[in-house]
């Protein structure tokens, strides 16, 4: 088995999945149902990727839950993406440090 072929297969399949729909859909889609569906897709995909995966993202459910809570609160108050992202990480880190004291 060749490393070069492995990487070519990985990269090729991944690229074609992205490219084919991108190149094929040229016109505005007319169907109201399909347009509504596409409008909701981003939120549906992001949520499905985040929950419950976020609770396993730091190696400890407790620190991840704390980080998640901080992210939700800051996002609710319309904080910029980078602020929410780094604050959640800092919260998870602090929670981990706090637990390590006991």
């Amino acid at each position, binding site marked *: 088995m060749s490393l070069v072929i492995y990487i070519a297969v990985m990269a090729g399949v991944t690229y074609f999945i992205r490219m084919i729909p991108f190149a094929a859909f040229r016109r505005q889609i007319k169907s109201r149902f399909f347009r509504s569906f596409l409008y909701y897709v981003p*939120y*549906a995909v992001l949520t499905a990727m985040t929950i419950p995966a976020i609770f396993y993202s730091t190696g400890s459910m407790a620190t991840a839950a704390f980080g998640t809570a901080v992210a939700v609160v800051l996002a609710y108050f319309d904080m910029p993406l980078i602020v929410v992202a780094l604050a959640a990480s800092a919260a*998870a880190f602090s929670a981990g440090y706090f637990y390590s004291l006991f």
Partner: protein
Amino acid sequence: MKSPFVKGVLDGVPIALGYLSVSFGFGILAVRSGLTSLVSVIISASNLTSAGQAAGIAIIAAGGSYLEMALTQLIINLRYGLMSISLSQKLDSTFNSPRRLLVAYGITDEIFAVASAQKGLLTARYMYGLISVSTLGWCTGTFLGASAGQLLPTSLTNAMGIVLYAMFIAIVIPPVKKSRGVLAVTATAAICSMIFKYLLTQVSGGFAIIFSAIIAAVIGALVFPVADEEETEVTEQ
């Protein structure tokens, strides 16, 4: 007035920072599976996908078949196809075929998320900025992880694992406050995703995301069809 490219670069900075931490982990993993730092960076630069790459190096390490490699990538990354269809509706009129072929390379979860949250149509230059800075972060993190991963304390690398998910939360919550449709879709997607994770465990992670997203978006489209003005505000301004 900032140029679209510069705006893309600036919008891509949070993605690049998140990618630094995630691809750092990938770099560590790749070296542990017996790959060199150079090969790890080549994989990152040519694939630009987290879950797909992690599965890919596992298959390489196990000496799996090329067919298995192709099918695994197809399943894990099929969600990009859905994202591509969605983004294809948001491209401005200057998006000719070469530009589409180029930008298609950079459709990742995070780039898709930031691009679809933009008001109005997307220009190629904006996408170039967004994709180039994100790719730089992804490859740099891979290189650092592959060459120096063992130097950082675990407590820090663990905490960095939440960065990208927190960014998703920051993208989803504001529209959830404003739209009952988005709220319903989000709740449905979360419930479906948990059902797949804890009850229908035979469904792989990639398919679980696709199924959850399709079910939630179909329910949203049936129960809360988007009015033209509302949609215009998001996709055509």
